[in-house]
C-alpha cells in the first residue's frame, strides 16, 4: 500500500492585490512603446496619482536574459520584453533587496484576447519571475480593448475612463511627434536639431499631460478630452518648436514604410536592430507606423465582429451604432490633434479600405498579429504613392505574421512593381537581415531619383532653380512648411512640384 501524500497540484500565478492605500508608495512599471510614448503615458499616470516609471529601453542583452528564463521557442518580442523586465527587476533587487522590489513595484502591461502569444505574455513573465526569485512580484494585465475596466488588481489600479483616455491621448500625441520627427530628421540642415526638438516637444507634452485638469472619471472626462482646446494648444507649442528646425527637402531620399508585427514595428532600438535609424543612416526617409492605426484596427475588428453578430442578434445592432460612433469620434479627435500641427502628420487610413484591399489575399476577420493590415497597408501605400518601399518586420517564431507574409507572396505575384522587403528579426542575426533590406533599398533609391528627375522634367524646374525659389520663401525650409502630396511618393519630388506651382 502506497503512502498517501498530499497532492501538489499546480496553480497559476496570481498576484497579491495592489490596494488603493499602496498607491503613493508603489511604482508602476511599464514598457513596450517608444521612449516618447512612454514619457507621455508616464505623465498621464502621474496625473491620476500614480507613481510610474517606464522600463529602460530594450537592449540586446535582454534577448539573452529572456531566452535564459523562458521556455525555448518564444517569439522575439516576448523574449525581449520578458528579458527587459527581468533584467530591471534583478538589478533593482541587488540594489534594494527582493522584498523591497516586491513591495515597491508592480508591472502593468496590455493584454489581448490574443490567439497568439500576446495574450499569453504573462506566462513568460511569471516564468521569468520564478527564475529570478521574485515570485511575489505583482504584474497586471490591462485589456487593451476596454476603456472603462473599473477597479482592478485589488483597487490599486482604477481603470476608469479618465485613466484610459489619458493613456490613449498620450499615445496619440506620441505618434504625432514621432511622425514629425521622421519627416524632419532626414532633411535637417543642422545635425541633431530634430532630436533636440523632439526632446523639447515631448517635455512640453509631458507637462501638459501631467497637469491636465480633473474633469471627473467618466463622461465629464470624455467630453473634456474630446472638446476642450487643452491638448491642441499644447500641440501648437510643439508646432512652434518644430518650426524652428530648418530642413532641406530637396534631398532625394526613398520613403520606406515600416510595417509588421506591432511591437517590432513600434520599437526603436536593439529589439529591431534599430532599423529605423539604420535606414536613415543609409539615406532613407522612414514612414513610422503610428500606434493610433493599431488602435483603430482594434476598433475595426470589434466592429466587423459585431456587424456579423448583428445579422442575427438585435442587441448587437445597438452596439454596432455605439462602436461606429466611437470610431468617428476617434478619427475626428486624431484629425483635430493633427490640425494643431498644421495637418502635417499622416491621416489615419480608413480601416474599411484596408480590409477591402487585403480581402482577396487575407480575410479581414483573421485577427492575431497585424491581421489584414500587413497586406492592406502595403497595398494602400503602394497605390496611393505614400512610399517607395515597404520594410516589413517579422518576428522570429511569430505565428500570425508568418501567415500574412505567406499571403504577401500572392500580393507580390499580382503587384510585381511593389518593393517589399520582409525582414525576419531574431534579435541576433543583424548583418543578414540588414543586408537583405539593403538590396531592396538600393532599388528604392533608384526609384526615388527617377521620380525626382521626372518631376523636374515635367515642371521644368532644375535643382538649382528650385533652391533659388526656396531662398525667396524661407518659410518653405521650415520643418512645419506644408507637406502637400502631389502624386509622388518621395518628399523631394513632391516639394519640387510644390515649388513649381508656387512659382507660377
Amino acid at each position, binding site marked *: 500500500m502506497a503512502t498517501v*501524500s498530499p*497532492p501538489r*497540484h499546480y496553480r497559476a500565478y496570481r498576484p497579491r492585490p495592489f490596494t488603493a492605500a499602496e498607491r503613493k508608495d508603489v511604482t508602476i512599471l511599464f514598457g513596450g512603446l517608444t521612449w516618447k510614448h512612454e514619457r507621455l503615458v508616464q505623465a498621464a499616470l502621474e496625473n491620476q496619482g500614480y507613481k510610474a516609471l517606464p522600463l529602460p529601453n530594450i537592449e540586446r542583452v535582454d534577448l539573452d536574459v529572456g531566452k535564459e528564463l523562458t521556455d525555448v521557442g518564444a517569439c522575439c518580442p516576448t523574449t525581449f520584453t520578458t528579458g527587459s523586465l527581468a533584467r530591471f527587476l534583478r538589478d533593482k533587487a541587488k540594489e534594494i533587496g527582493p522584498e523591497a522590489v516586491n513591495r515597491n513595484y508592480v508591472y502593468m502591461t496590455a493584454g489581448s484576447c490574443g490567439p497568439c*502569444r500576446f495574450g499569453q505574455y504573462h506566462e513568460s513573465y511569471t516564468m521569468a519571475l520564478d527564475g529570478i526569485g521574485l515570485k511575489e512580484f505583482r504584474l497586471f494585465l490591462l485589456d487593451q480593448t476596454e476603456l472603462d475596466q473599473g477597479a482592478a488588481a485589488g483597487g490599486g489600479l482604477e481603470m476608469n475612463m479618465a485613466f484610459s483616455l489619458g493613456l490613449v491621448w498620450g499615445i496619440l500625441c506620441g505618434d504625432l511627434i514621432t511622425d514629425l520627427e521622421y519627416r524632419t530628421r532626414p532633411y535637417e540642415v543642422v545635425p541633431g536639431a530634430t532630436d533636440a526638438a523632439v526632446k523639447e516637444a515631448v517635455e512640453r507634452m509631458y507637462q501638459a499631460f501631467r497637469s491636465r485638469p480633473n474633469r471627473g472619471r467618466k463622461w465629464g472626462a470624455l467630453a473634456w478630452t474630446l472638446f476642450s482646446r487643452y491638448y491642441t494648444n499644447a500641440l501648437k507649442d510643439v508646432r512652434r518648436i518644430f518650426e524652428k528646425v530648418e530642413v532641406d527637402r530637396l534631398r532625394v531620399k526613398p520613403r520606406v514604410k515600416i510595417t509588421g508585427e506591432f511591437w517590432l514595428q513600434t520599437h526603436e532600438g536593439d529589439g529591431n536592430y534599430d532599423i529605423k535609424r539604420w535606414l536613415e543612416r543609409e539615406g532613407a526617409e522612414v514612414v513610422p507606423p503610428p500606434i493610433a492605426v493599431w488602435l483603430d484596427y482594434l476598433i475595426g475588428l470589434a466592429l466587423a465582429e459585431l456587424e456579423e453578430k448583428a445579422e442575427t442578434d438585435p442587441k448587437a445592432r445597438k452596439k454596432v451604432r455605439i462602436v461606429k460612433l466611437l470610431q468617428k469620434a476617434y478619427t475626428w479627435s486624431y484629425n483635430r490633434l493633427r490640425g494643431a500641427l498644421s495637418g502635417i502628420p499622416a491621416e489615419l487610413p480608413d480601416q474599411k479600405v484596408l480590409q477591402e484591399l487585403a480581402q482577396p489575399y487575407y480575410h479581414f476577420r483573421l485577427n492575431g498579429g497585424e491581421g489584414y493590415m500587413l497586406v492592406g497597408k502595403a497595398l494602400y501605400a503602394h497605390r496611393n504613392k505614400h512610399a517607395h518601399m515597404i520594410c516589413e518586420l517579422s518576428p522570429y*517564431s511569430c*505565428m500570425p505574421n508568418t*501567415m500574412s507574409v505567406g499571403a504577401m507572396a500572392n500580393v507580390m505575384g499580382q503587384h510585381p512593381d511593389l518593393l517589399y522587403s520582409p525582414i525576419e528579426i531574431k534579435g541576433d542575426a543583424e548583418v543578414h537581415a540588414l543586408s537583405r533590406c539593403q538590396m531592396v533599398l538600393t532599388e528604392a533609391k533608384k526609384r526615388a531619383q527617377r521620380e525626382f528627375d521626372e518631376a523636374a522634367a515635367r515642371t521644368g524646374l532644375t535643382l538649382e532653380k528650385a533652391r533659388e525659389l526656396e531662398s525667396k520663401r524661407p518659410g518653405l525650409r521650415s520643418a512645419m512648411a506644408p507637406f502637400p502630396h502631389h502624386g509622388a511618393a518621395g518628399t523631394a519630388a513632391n516639394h519640387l512640384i510644390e515649388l513649381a506651382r508656387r512659382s507660377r
Partner: protein
Amino acid sequence: MLRTWFGRRPSAPSTPRPAKDRSKLRVGIPRVLNVWSTHRFWTAFLEALGVRPENIVYSSDTSEDQGREFGKGRGAVDCCYPVKCMSGHYGELVFGQRRKLDVILSPIIYTLPSFLHGHVQGSFSCTRVAAGPENIKSGFLKEADVFSGNGIRYASPFVSFAERALMPRQMVKGLGDVLDLDLEEATKAVDAGFDALDEFNARMRSKSREILESCAREDRPCLLVLARPYHMDPGIGHEIEVNVQASGFPILWMQYFPLDSDLLEWVFHDDLKSGVIRNCFDISDVWPSSYSANTNEILWGAKVAARLPWITCVLRLSSYECGMDQPTYTPVQKIVEGGDTLLFKFGDLDSTKPSGSVRIRVETIVHYVRKSSSDIIARKRARLPADCPLLPRR
C-alpha cells in the same frame, strides 16, 4: 480507430432531399489542421446539401512523399509543419485525383467547437490554423491561378464553430456562389453537420469511458495523449502513441475524454469542495488567459491526467516551432508531475519521423510505465473519494 476517422456515413434519413441537384459535384477537403476535429461536420454538411458521399474527397494523410510530389515550390514561408504540409494536400487535390474535383473547400476555422466553450474566455483556433488556408492558397495563385487553370473553384468559408448561430450565414457568404447555397439550405445543413459531429464525439467519449472502466476494474494503467487534433495524422504525430500501444497499454486522446459529470465530479472532488474551481471545466486555476480552444483543452487534459489514478503517464506531442504550445510546456509539466504522473514530451515533431530516437524513448516510456504504474495508481487513488464511478457499485 484512426483508420476509420474520415469514413463516411450516409446522411441521416430525416434530412430532407435538397431541391438543387448537387449529386455530381465533387468536393475536395484538405485533411489538415482542425479539419481533424471537425471532419464529421463537413461530411454531413455536404451530404445534407446533396453532395454524394463518394464525391466528398479528403486528401490523404500527410507524408513527405505527398509534399514532394504535389507541394514542392508552393510553400510561401517557413513555419510549423502542420501548416507547411498543407501545400502537399492542396496539390494532391488539384493534381492527384483520378476523377477531377469541382471544388476545393478549405475552411478558415476562426473558432472551434470546444467542450470547454462557455467555461473559458474564448475558443479561438491558433492564428496559424485560421490563417493557414490564406497562406497556402497564395502558393497556388501567385504566378497563375492553378485552381481555375484546373477547372477547380477554391472556396474558403470563414467559420465560427463556437457560435453555431453565425454559421449558416457564414456558409452562405463563403460557399454561396460555389454551391449555389441559400440561407434555408445552409441552416439545415449546418444543423445536420453539428448533429453528426456531436454524435461522433459522444461515441468516441463513450469508448474512452469503456477503456477507463476496464483499466479501473483491472487496476492497470493507460496513457493520455495531450496534443493538437492533427497530431492524430500519422505524418504529423508520427504514430508515437501507436508504438507505445503496441506494448499493450491502452491510449486515450484528451479530445475524446469522457465528460460525464459523475466521473469528472469524482476526479475534481477536492478542487470543487475547496472552491478552487467553479466547475469541472474551469481551468482558471492553471491558465488565466484561456482564449485558445486547443490550448485550453490541453491544459484541462493535463489536470485530468494529474488526478485520475489509471492515467499514469502523459504523452505530450508538439510540432517544431509551435508558438501555441511553447508557453504551455512548463505549466503542463508542472500540472502533470504535480499529480505524481509520468510525462514524456515529444516537442519537436517535424516532417521526418525520428525513428531511432522514438524507438529508444518508447522503450524508456514502457519501462517506466511498467515500473511505476502500480505505485502511481495507488497514490492517486488514495487521494480520491472511495466511491469510484468507473467501478461497478458495490
